[in-house]
């Protein structure tokens, strides 16, 4: 005879099961004529009269874009999920088991309810959603914070206008024209005046390849422009002080690359290279470089 009941004396503290009920998964077929279906929501019902009902529907549809590309309109997906949310919200007040709800669409289906338990309806909804709705952005996923060069230049310009006041227009440029062998173009630089030419770029990149390309293009333009106009060159890079949501190893390689390139440029060509983590700090550095020559020159 096996003494199974004796096991119970070894059991630890019970879990908080203030709420016991059923969790339902809601599946969505963006194309009702194709087999692909995705879990996009969860409903949890509890209580004798199903008076406790919680639900959550996927809001961020970006992963549908990854899967379908242009094969379905993103607006349609967004609209369908909004409509689903409204219908669930309405049905939740009915105190009818979710398995009997009519969603009125062949694109949506409520799966069979499964036992769930925990401290609160909200906790159960959240747990079920995180487990089942894999198209939702992961809460654990550190998202990459993007700062494009155009946006950084705009922010630096706004701050510089305040710092330089009336002098701003004397050195802020939107490229410098060049002509070579009957070809016309622009050196991609942002500041030019008093014998100095500078460019502001963003070093917030997902990969070292992007960072390399950005820095080498900037170096080529600013140094060629400086030679053509017999000016001193400067590169002002927005560069974070900690990883902007990329793997640590990639981040370390990027820091090493920027450090090495800065040393090379400053050592071999007297170029001024400044890396700062915010557009404000970058603007201060640009102004400190120009101020003695522009404001007091």
């Amino acid at each position, binding site marked *: *005879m*096996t*003494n*199974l*009941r*004796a*096991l*119970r004396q*070894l*059991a*630890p*503290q*019970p*879990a908080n*099961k203030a709420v016991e009920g059923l*969790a339902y998964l809601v599946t969505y077929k963006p194309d009702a004529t194709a087999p692909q279906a995705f879990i996009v929501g969860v409903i949890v019902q509890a209580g004798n009269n199903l008076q406790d009902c919680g639900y959550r529907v996927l809001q961020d549809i970006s992963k549908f874009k990854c899967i379908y590309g242009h094969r379905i309109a993103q607006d349609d997906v967004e609209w369908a999920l909004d409509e689903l949310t409204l219908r669930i919200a309405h049905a939740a007040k009915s105190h009818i088991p979710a398995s009997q709800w009519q969603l009125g669409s062949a694109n949506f289906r409520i799966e*069979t309810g*499964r*036992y*769930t*338990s*925990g401290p609160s309806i909200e906790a159960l909804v959240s*747990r*079920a959603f995180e*487990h089942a709705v894999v198209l939702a952005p992961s809460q654990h996923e550190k998202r990459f914070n993007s700062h494009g060069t155009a946006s950084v230049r705009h922010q630096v310009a706004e701050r510089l206008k305040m710092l330089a006041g009336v002098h701003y227009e004397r050195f802020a440029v939107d490229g410098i024209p060049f002509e070579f062998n009957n070809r016309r173009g622009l050196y991609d630089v942002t500041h030019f005046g008093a014998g100095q030419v500078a460019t502001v770029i963003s070093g917030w990149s997902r990969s070292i390849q992007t960072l390399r390309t950005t820095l080498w293009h900037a170096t080529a333009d600013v140094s060629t422009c400086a030679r053509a106009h017999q000016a001193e060159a400067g590169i002002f890079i927005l560069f974070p002080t900690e990883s902007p949501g990329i793997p640590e190893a990639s981040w370390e390689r990027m820091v090493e690359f920027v450090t090495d390139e800065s040393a090379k440029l400053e050592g071999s060509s007297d170029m001024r290279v400044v890396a700062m983590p915010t557009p404000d700090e970058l603007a201060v550095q640009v102004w400190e470089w120009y101020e003695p020559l522009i404001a007091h020159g």
Partner: protein
Amino acid sequence: MTLHILTEDHYLDFLQPVEDNQQNKTVHAARLHTGQPGEQVFVCKLLLPNAFELGNEAIAHYLARRASVPSPPEAAIVHMPARIASQRIPLSISQDYENAEGDVVMWCTKKLPYRSIRATFRAAADRTSATMRILKSESGRRMAAFDHLTGHADRHDGNYLWAGRDECVAIDNEALFGYSDWRAAPLAFATQNQLLEEMRRQVVGGSERADSLRDLQSGMVFYGESHSAAVQSAQSEISKLITLLYGAHAATNVLTCLHTRSAADWMKSELGLI
């Protein structure tokens, strides 16, 4: 090798059936409250309540990691009244799983990290060549040595999972000690190591070279040298649980057998290498 002892108070969510053409139709994924942080999803199966399979699973769990055999890091025994189980687990549960007191018992192993699609593959497509590949790997040889130590009599290709290229994880250890009942009498059984037997068959049939068999046996002897320490390390936990479930004499029977089979040169002698 944590083994949690839990009840219906710790069974949080039924997640879904795990369908794999297995004989046991109660296999399912569930979330359990173990008191540990992080995701606590386990693969659970009901076991016959009056048999010794539960004890075998627990013994193997306590021993496997100590013998460096790849196996699930955490496991749980969940005991609950059958009427509650039938409300929470929407699978057809035969009455055979219910004991006279109206209870059921589940053996649960923590879900393995999903490192590759193979993490869920059983070696079914090309059974023999898959088994041979496993037996030429370190983890396969460790598993073969472990099966010899414990007298595992049912290590077919459904009772280990692939966890990567040439890497396996031992699961389903219900058939230890030659499937002999160790609760009442001391153990005496003939070892039937299915992995070793399969290699022998392939060598005899000419599909494998004799070197492969020798390498496997050498590996088993080598890994068998750590078994004594593994048994020593696990014996107090095994003794405690088996005594609680089946009585002190059952624990003595099991540990006597394990000490004998983990002694120095036992494996060598068993494999005919001395």
